[in-house]
């Protein structure tokens, strides 16, 4: 009782407001020396924002941070490191052309009379890796030659080289195979014994139960609960806390769409593989349905969507359109076959920020506005009217169709891309994370649009890690796990709980045999299940 030393880290009343969204609301969080503390929550619950505040990437709108009981202000990542906070992000921050050692000490290479002291780097890097219990990585090797799991270890070594007292890992196992993940936990246990506080973010609940000491559950930017995690803690408990009560009415339909039963599916994919990352995927998209595809980060669903649009290399397998085998090697092929893709990277892959909204909308349909085939001069008024029609259709708020794209909000930009493809009038629309980073109002409008498009008899594929979204809009849901299609749910059978256990790659005995609609899927599930 007497020895109440303060926890190494305490965050009090942390609030973070972004334009139009309250990402964190009065969050309290603490971490002790020598514990693995998991931060648990769905996508958008605020986990990453909280960690970025701790790492000095964001400043909190309100709230205070105490280290060893003393209040601190973290202005930038450098100050965070000086306070002993190191973070390993989901995306690797390493440079392939440098050696392992150079990567670990990038930006603070030991110097001996002006030149970089290579032997010193080698020695120090070996030391850091030894701390991880890793002796099989050659520190003089170029990073690009290492497999992904070892790159991940180098990333952790880099974080450790700052001699942190608090180590944050943001989904470090997303890209790792189960065996590699086990290995990582051995390493984390070792670090724990060195009195380092480890904050661990993952979507894999099994890992949390097996390896973490405490868990803090976030939902919609608030802390639901902080609890001690025992071996006996069930995944279901965690899932229930994560979900809470959701407002289903936010989404559109009650009973799903009537599917047009044609002889052939609108789109059929057979045995599609992408290198080792997507394996042997088979599914159908029917007319008039919204097909949701979900899975953990890196389970292959995004690659699959890209493959269907011809922008993913190393694709094998068969794609059938209305029963006829087709070749899709480029977006041009895909568009010719009536398919479009709206990716999650709006800025990089969708928008022309310095062009007008009108021009952004009509770009794939320009041929239609040519006055004649021989002299392809644009019919300006027709083009403008068409753009205006779809601008009002999807309800974009702007001064005029000649407003520059850059001036629009994220939601309106996304609607403009939607308008672009509606004008092109295609039958298969594929969306990757259609509502990423846009405000609630625009979200609801986009959901309404997906609904309307399906009712018109088009086929919609929505790829998203957001289970609430997937559940709310899909007629059927496919779940991917480690590159394979492992389960299929009908709208009626799906629930957030079942989806959560499916995306974890749960074996059939978790929820005995339900929802498995054909044998192939169940076989896939048991294979990956036994591996995990």
């Amino acid at each position, binding site marked *: 009782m007497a020895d109440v030393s303060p926890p190494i880290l305490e965050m009090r009343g942390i609030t973070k407001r972004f334009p139009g969204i309250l990402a964190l609301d009065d969050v309290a969080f603490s971490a002790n020396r020598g514990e693995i503390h998991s931060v648990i929550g769905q996508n958008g619950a605020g986990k990453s924002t909280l960690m970025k505040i701790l790492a000095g990437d964001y400043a909190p709108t309100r709230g205070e941070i105490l280290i060893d009981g003393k209040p601190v202000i973290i202005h930038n990542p450098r100050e965070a490191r000086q306070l002993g906070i190191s973070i390993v992000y989901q995306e690797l921050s390493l440079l392939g052309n440098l050696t392992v050692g150079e990567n670990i000490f990038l930006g603070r290479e030991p110097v001996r009379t002006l030149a970089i002291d290579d032997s010193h780097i080698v020695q120090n890097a070996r030391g850091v890796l030894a701390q991880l219990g890793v002796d099989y990585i050659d520190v003089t090797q170029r990073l690009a030659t290492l497999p992904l799991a070892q790159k991940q270890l180098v990333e952790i070594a880099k974080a450790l080289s700052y001699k942190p007292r608090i180590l944050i890992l943001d989904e470090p196992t997303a890209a790792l195979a189960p065996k590699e993940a086990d290995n990582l936990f051995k390493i984390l246990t070792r670090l724990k014994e060195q009195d380092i506080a480890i904050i661990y973010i993952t979507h894999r609940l099994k890992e949390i139960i097996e390896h973490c000491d405490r868990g803090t559950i976030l939902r919609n930017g608030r802390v639901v609960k902080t609890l001690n995690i025992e071996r006996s803690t069930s995944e279901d408990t965690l899932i229930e806390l994560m979900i809470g009560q959701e407002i289903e009415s936010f989404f559109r339909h009650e009973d799903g769409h009537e599917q047009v039963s044609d002889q052939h599916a609108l789109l059929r994919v057979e045995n599609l593989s992408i290198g080792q990352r997507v394996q042997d995927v088979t599914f159908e998209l029917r007319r008039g349905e919204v097909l949701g595809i979900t899975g953990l980060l890196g389970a292959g669903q995004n690659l699959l969507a890209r493959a269907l649009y011809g922008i993913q290399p190393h694709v094998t397998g068969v794609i059938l359109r209305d029963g006829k085998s087709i070749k899709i090697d480029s977006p041009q092929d895909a568009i010719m076959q009536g398919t479009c893709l709206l990716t999650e990277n709006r800025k990089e892959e*969708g928008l*022309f920020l310095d062009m007008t909204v009108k*021009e952004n909308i009509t770009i794939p349909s320009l041929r239609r*506005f040519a006055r004649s085939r021989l002299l392809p001069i644009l019919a300006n008024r027709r083009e403008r009217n068409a753009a205006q029609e779809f601008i009002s259709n999807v309800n974009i708020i702007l001064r005029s169709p000649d407003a520059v794209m850059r001036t629009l909000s994220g939601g309106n930009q996304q609607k403009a891309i939607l308008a672009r493809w509606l004008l092109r009038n295609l039958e298969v629309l594929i969306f990757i994370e259609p509502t990423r980073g846009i405000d609630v109002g625009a979200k609801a409008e986009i959901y309404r649009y997906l609904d309307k498009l399906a009712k018109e008899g088009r086929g919609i594929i929505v790829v998203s890690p957001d289970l609430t979204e997937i559940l709310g809009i899909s007629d059927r849901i496919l779940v991917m796990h480690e590159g394979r299609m492992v389960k299929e749910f009908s709208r009626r059978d799906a629930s957030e709980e079942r989806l959560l256990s499916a995306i974890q790659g749960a074996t059939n005995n978790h929820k005995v045999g339900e929802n498995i609609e054909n044998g192939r899927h169940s076989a896939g599930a048991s294979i990956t299940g036994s591996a995990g």
Partner: protein
Amino acid sequence: MAVIQQEQALQAQPGERIREWLNQFGTVLVALVLIAIFSLTTDHFFTLQNAQNILRQIAIPAIVAIGMTMVILIGGIDLSVGSVVLFSSAAMNSLIFNGVLPTGPAIVAGILAAGLIGLINGVLIEKVKISPVIVTLGTMVAVRGLGQMILWINNSWLWVRGPIFSAIKADTWLSLPIPAVIMVALYVVAWVILTQTPFGRRIYAIGGNQRAAELCGVNTTRDKILVYVLCSLGAGIGGLLMSARLSAISPGVGQGLEFDAITAVILGGTSLAGGKGRVEKTIIGALIVGLILNYMTIKGISAHYQRAVTGFIILGAALLDQLSRARSES
């Protein structure tokens, strides 16, 4: 609250509007101010004769700058245009001099040969994926060599002969020298292509966001190669005008023209990052350079100084481009 933010975004600030206006008409304003200053400080500047001189002087760089504008719009650069001017004029005059083709077809052949150089540039840049600076630096040297080879076969010089050339050199239309008429006509064509055709729209799209253009189904490779071909065709026409202006083609013809063209493009406000710019402003850019050089000539300033001045104009314009880009992105 979201609605309030949107409405604020919909209303342009007054300062914003002035800046926009300056962006739009700033170059024209500079040209007018220069004309005013030069007219007041010299006796011979503001005369019809001198205006015709200036137009004759700027016609060739201004025409070459049309293609350069398109190349810079797609985020590229073409350093070979000066050499292509030599090559095409050497080719067409060699054909005429040796009696291989009559004047008209020979001119067409020379311009098409120039287009071929553009095709080589485009294929190396887009298919082989070598950077545009390296490729066109290579063709700049190689094509000048080719042109000089043609001259060497013809005893190091080629005399320009033919009624078409002398007509271009001497005739005027409504007091406009013929090269200026050709220049204006080509600018009208380029303006139509860039603003009124799907191809022009795609050029802006590619320069603005190539990845997004690809994902919109634009064949960016084909379009970009075509832009390099158009740029070289423009330089080929420059070769025609150059032949008309000179009485003989010598090995140094067209040297440094690539920089005059790039200067005009940048002064016209086209962003070196691609995707932003207007061809009708490039002609103003060319005019500004022409005005300054003409003024220095009238004032008797040596050609060596003139070169340095153009160099500093490029640097200054590039600086302005960088500053405005930094501001628009912040």
